[in-house]
């Protein structure tokens, strides 16, 4: 019931930056009912899109050079974070280069979590022109973020 050190169902989360496209297929199967393995398959001809992995070293540069940015704080021991990640992937497809999608692995960049008082994950911070405009803790569905992004695209 508690996170095992490494978990095979985390392929999805660990492949940052990821190559993604208009069509994502998630193959999920369970073995012996004890765990599920989630692997992402990507179509070939799609354009390459990146979800930026933020660290203390690159955070401020990325923040100031991007207009609209979603930052997802996650860790591989957090199951709801995996749902959040599925949603973020879809949003990245949908918005392309209009919105920058970024992730902070709180295990690797604890200082960023501390800086933004992130004490529960998933937490998604939305920045516009470097300013924090929205903060959500816990899982929120895609259409919530679509409304938020649409209202802030220009």
């Amino acid at each position: 019931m508690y996170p095992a050190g490494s978990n095979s169902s985390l392929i999805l989360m660990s492949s940052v930056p990821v190559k993604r496209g208009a069509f994502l297929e998630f193959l999920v199967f369970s073995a012996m009912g004890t765990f599920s393995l989630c692997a992402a398959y990507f179509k070939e001809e799609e354009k390459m899109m990146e979800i930026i992995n933020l660290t203390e070293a690159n955070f401020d540069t990325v923040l100031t050079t991007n207009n609209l940015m979603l930052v997802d704080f996650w860790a591989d021991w957090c199951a709801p974070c995996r749902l959040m990640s599925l949603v973020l992937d879809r949003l990245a497809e949908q918005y392309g280069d209009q919105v920058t999608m970024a992730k902070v692995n709180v295990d690797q960049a604890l200082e960023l979590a501390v800086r933004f008082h992130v004490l529960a994950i998933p937490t998604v911070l939305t920045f516009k022109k470097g300013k924090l405009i929205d903060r959500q803790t816990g899982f929120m569905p895609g259409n919530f973020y679509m409304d938020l992004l649409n209202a802030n695209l220009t």
Partner: protein
Amino acid sequence: MYDIIVIGGGPAGLAASINGKNRNKSVLLCSNDYRDSYLYKAARIENYPGRPGISGKELLEELVNHAKKAEVEFLQEKAFAVISLDGQIYVSAGDKVENARRVILAIGMASPNKFPGEAPFLGRGVSYCATCDGMLYRNGKKVTVVGKAENSVEEANYLNEIGCQVTFVSDKPAFGLKEGIESVVAKRLEVMGKDAVTALKADDREIPSDGIFILRNSVAPSDLLPGLELDGGAITVNRRMETSVPGVYAAGDCTGRPLQISKSLGEGQSAALNAAESIDLEKKEGKSAR
């Protein structure tokens, strides 16, 4: 992927699971301990047709055994979040993510009356998930656990094991806590803080806290599946037990009054049969729920 994931193992969820299996569907029943069901608390039931005087415990155990015989798969975890994506429904429970063609919510009457200060500090020290957020406090941080669920002691022990400094608060004395965890009995609770949580006020005492884990049996339907249509706290359903989210059904106490066993069993059955029918239709037509 399962055909159906049922969330909640009371009469509604068990009836849904059994009927799903009867229709040859693969079923995962994701629930807290079955003893968390309201039914377990009913000493003597007089209005369950055919079995006057049966105890809630006995009836529930018969239902659980029936579900086991029907080869329903059990996952004893609390579900935290449900999403619908590309015609599939994903459920995160404990440290797992499972998915299905249809989901049936049979979560009973969720009544999480939030404590003062709880909502504003969610994510700034208040957390509902030890498995998700415990690690953020592992370096000797002061963590207060508010134990409201069967397995809260277990979760408090886990937080202690990963290196948190744990205080356990409950309304009755707690048993089974590891050495080094202080147990506090208190009734009135309030979350205190400024930018982030600083303390839990427990009756007249302030317990300094970097984090407060409030562990309940239930997750409010609006937290479990944001966007789900509700009517005064009850999940809105139609005659087919379909909710406002395609592919998601609801049954039992969570859909509103009357809060009764037979009504819950019947709705669970109805939800499962309609879910099974729509899966069959979808397979025949080769299209998804959306």
